[in-house]
C-alpha cells in the first residue's frame, strides 16, 4: 500500500513539474514573442539597384557592415542586387510589387535624381519614402600621371582651344551625373555642348583603365572612385567639383571655382523605402542611421573612401530632394538634354 502511495506521490510530483515546465516554456515563448514584436522583427533587406562593385552596392554593404559591427540592429541584414535602368527596376519593384514592404531599404543617390531630371526614370521621390542621406562623394577631374596637362588650368585652356582633342571618360550614360559635370564645365568655359567628347563606360574602374591606358585625356568621376590611384600617384586629380576642400589624399587638390569655373557637383548617397513604410518604422531607421553616422566605425569608412559625412532626414531631406530635382531639371533643360 505504502509503496503505491509513494508511487502516486512521485507521479503527482512529476506531473506538477511537467506542468510547471510547460507554463515556464509558454511564458518564455510569450516573452520572446513580445520582444520580437519590436520592429524590425525579421531579416532586413538592403537593395542595391546595380551590380556588385559600384557605388550603390558599396553604400549598402558599408552601411550593413557598420550597423552590424556597431550592434545597432537586432536583425541580420542581407544585401540584394537588383540592377536595371539605373535604379528604375528596383523602384518599379518597390512601388508596384511591394508598396507595403516594411523591412527593405533601397540605396539611392544623385544619379537617380539626374535620371529623373532627364526623364529616363518615370518616378520621382514623391513615389517612395526617402529615409536618409548619409554622405557625399564629390566630383573630381583627373589626368594620367604623365599627362601633358600639368594643371586644371592647362587642361581647360587646351579644351577651350581644341574641344576635339579632349575626351573625358566617365561612368554614367549621357544625361547622367558625369556627363552633366562635363556639360556644366563646358558651359562655364563657353564650349559648345555639341563639341563635348564624353565617353560613357560601364563603371568607374573601366573609365579609370581607359585613362591609365592613355585612351582618353581626362577622367570625370568621384573622389572615392580614384582615391587608391590618387594615393599611388598613377593619376593626378587636377580639380575638385566641390564648394569645399577635402582632407587626406585630396588635401592639395584645388577646387574648380579657384579657376573661375564655378561648378560644384556632389553625389550624395542614402536610402529610400517603400511608399507604404509606416511612420514609426521610418522613424526607427532615421534614428538608427543617425546613431550609426556618429560611430567610430563609420568615421573610418568615410576616411578610407574619401567620402564626406552629411546626414539628412525627415523634412530637411524632402526639401533637399525637391531642390536637387528642380536644380537638375533646370540644368538638363539649359544643357539641352531634355526638350
Amino acid at each position: 500500500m505504502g509503496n503505491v502511495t509513494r508511487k502516486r506521490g512521485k507521479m503527482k510530483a512529476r506531473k506538477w513539474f511537467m506542468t510547471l515546465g510547460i507554463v515556464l516554456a509558454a511564458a518564455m515563448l510569450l516573452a520572446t514573442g513580445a520582444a520580437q514584436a519590436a520592429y524590425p522583427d525579421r531579416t532586413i533587406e538592403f537593395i542595391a539597384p546595380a551590380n556588385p562593385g559600384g557605388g550603390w552596392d558599396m553604400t549598402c554593404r558599408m552601411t550593413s557592415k557598420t550597423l552590424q559591427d556597431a550592434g545597432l540592429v537586432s536583425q541580420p541584414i542581407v544585401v540584394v542586387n537588383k540592377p536595371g535602368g539605373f535604379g528604375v527596376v528596383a523602384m518599379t519593384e518597390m512601388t508596384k510589387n511591394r508598396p507595403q514592404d516594411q523591412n527593405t531599404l533601397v540605396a539611392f543617390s544623385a544619379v537617380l535624381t539626374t535620371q529623373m531630371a532627364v526623364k529616363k526614370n518615370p518616378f520621382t521621390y514623391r513615389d517612395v519614402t526617402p529615409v536618409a542621406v548619409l554622405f557625399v562623394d564629390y566630383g573630381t577631374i583627373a589626368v594620367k600621371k604623365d599627362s601633358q596637362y600639368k594643371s586644371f588650368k592647362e587642361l581647360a585652356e587646351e579644351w577651350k582651344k581644341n574641344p576635339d582633342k579632349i575626351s573625358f571618360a566617365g561612368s554614367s550614360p549621357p544625361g547622367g551625373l558625369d556627363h552633366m559635370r562635363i556639360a556644366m564645365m563646358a558651359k562655364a568655359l563657353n564650349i559648345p555642348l555639341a563639341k563635348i567628347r564624353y565617353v560613357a563606360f560601364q563603371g568607374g574602374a573601366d573609365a579609370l583603365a581607359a585613362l591609365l591606358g592613355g585612351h582618353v585625356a581626362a577622367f570625370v568621376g568621384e573622389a572615392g572612385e580614384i582615391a587608391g590611384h590618387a594615393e599611388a600617384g598613377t593619376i593626378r586629380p587636377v580639380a575638385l567639383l566641390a564648394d569645399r576642400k577635402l582632407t587626406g589624399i585630396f588635401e592639395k587638390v584645388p577646387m574648380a571655382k579657384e579657376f573661375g569655373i564655378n561648378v560644384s557637383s556632389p553625389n550624395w548617397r542614402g536610402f529610400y523605402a517603400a511608399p507604404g513604410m509606416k511612420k514609426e518604422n521610418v522613424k526607427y531607421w532615421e534614428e538608427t542611421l543617425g546613431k550609426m553616422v556618429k560611430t567610430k566605425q563609420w568615421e573610418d569608412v568615410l576616411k578610407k573612401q574619401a567620402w564626406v559625412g552629411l546626414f539628412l532626414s525627415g523634412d530637411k531631406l524632402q526639401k533637399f530632394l525637391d531642390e536637387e530635382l528642380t536644380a537638375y531639371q533646370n540644368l538638363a533643360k539649359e544643357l539641352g538634354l531634355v526638350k
Partner: protein
Amino acid sequence: MIEIFHHLVYGLQIATTPTNLFYAFIGCLVGTLIGVLPGIGPAGGIALLIPLTFGKEPASAIILLAGIYYGAMYGGSTTSILLNVPGEAASVVTTLDGYQMAQKGRAGAALSIAALGSFIAGTIGLVLLMLLAPPLARAALKFGPAESFALMFFGLSTVTSLAGKSLRKGMVATTLGLMLSTVGSDLPTGIIRFTFGIANLMEGIDVVVLAIGLFAVSEVLTSTEEMAAGEFVVEKLSRIWLSLKEFMQSLGAIIRGSFLGFFIGVLPGAAHVTASFLSYTLEKKMASDPDNFGKGDIRGVAAPESANNAAACGALIPLLTLGLPASAVTAVLYSALLITGIRPSPFLFDKHPDVTWGLIGSMYIGNVMLLILNLPLVALWVKVLRTPARWLFPIVMVISFVGVYSVNASSLDLLMATGLGILGYIMRKLDYPLAPVILGFVLGVLMEQSLRQTLMISGGSLEIFWKSPIAMILFLLSAIFVVLPRFLARRKGMHLA
C-alpha cells in the same frame, strides 16, 4: 626570381594556417557547388557570401571569396557534359564535345579531363601570374575601346569552327545572338531598346536565361521526342576513368588552352567566354582530324575547360597589380576588399603582401583541394546518367528552371527560358548550331559598346583603328581564321581533282 620564391614561401605560410586552410576549403566547396548548379554564377555567389567575411582578416576573406571564383570554374563543366545544360556562358563550348562524349558512354573521361585540365591550367596560370603580373598589367592597359572591339571581333571569327557543316547557318545563329544582345538600356546613350515597356528587360536578357533556355530546355524537348519514337539511347558507360592515351592526347590542348586562357584573362571584356571559344577553335584548327570535333573529341573538352580556369588567374592580375577590376567577378572581389578595409591600388603588393601572396599561396593549395574534391565526384556524377530518362528529364527541367529563377527572381525569365527553349528546338530541327547564338550574344554587348566608345573618342572617324597596331593584328587574324581554311580546302580539292 629568388625574391619571388621568398614571397611565395611567405604566402604559403599564410595560406597554411589552419584558419586559412579552412577558408580555402569552404571557398572551393561552395565554388564547386555554384559551378555545378546552373543559375547563380561566381559573381552572385561571392556577393552572397561577403557577409561571412565580416570581422575576418582581409587575407582570410579574400582566400575564401577567391576560392569560390576558381572553384566555380571547376564545377562549371559538370552539367554541360552530363546534361547539355551549360551553367554559365563560359562552359557553353564544353557542351559541344562534352555532351557527345557522355552520349557515347564516356562521361567519366570527359569529367576527369575537365578536372585535370582545370588543375593543370590553374597551376600554370598561377606560375604565370607570379612571374608576369606587373608587365602584363601594363600591357593590358593598351587595350582601350578600339583594341577591345578588335578582340571581340576576333572572338566572333571563331564561329567558323562552331558552325558545323554550313557556315551560313552559323552566321545566321551568330546574328541572332547579336540581335538579342541589343535588348535593354544602351550604355553609350542610355536609351532603352526593345524592352516593350517591361522594366525587367532594361538590364537586357541574362545570359544564363538564354543559355539554359536555348540548350537545356530544347535538349529535353528533342530528347523526349526521340524517346517517344524509341530512338533515344545513351550508350552504356564503358569505363569511368580516363585512359593514359586519352590524357596524352589532351595534354597539348590543355597546355595551349592554359596559356591562351591566361593571356586573354588579363584583358578586359568577356574573358572567360572569349578564352573558351578561342581555345576550342585553336585546337580544331590545329587538329589533323578536325572533323572529329563536335562528335565527342576529348580535346574539345580539355581546351576550353583549361582556358577558362587559366583565365580566372589572368583576370586577377589587373585587380592585384593595378587595383582595377576588369571583370564582373573581380569587381565583386574589389568591393569585398574595400569592405575588409583594404583599398585596392597599384600598391597592393607592397602594402598588403599578406593579402596578395596569401591569396596566391592559397590558390596553389586550393587547386589541389579542388582536384581531390572533384575526381571522386566524377564517379558520383556519372551515376546520374543511369537515371532512367523518364525521371532524368523532369529533373533536368526542375534544375534548369530553379537556376533561371535564381538569377533575378523573375517569373518573366521563366517564360523567356521556355520561349527560347522552343526557339532552340526549332533551330535543332532545322540544323542550325546553337553555340554561336551565345557567342554573338555575349560578345555583341561588348562589341557594340566598345565600337561606340571608340567612335566617340575619335569623333566618328574610323582612322583610329588604323593607328592601333594591336587592333590591326587582331583584324588580320580574324581574316585568316575565316578565309584560310576555305582556301586550303579549295586547294586540297584541286589536288584531288
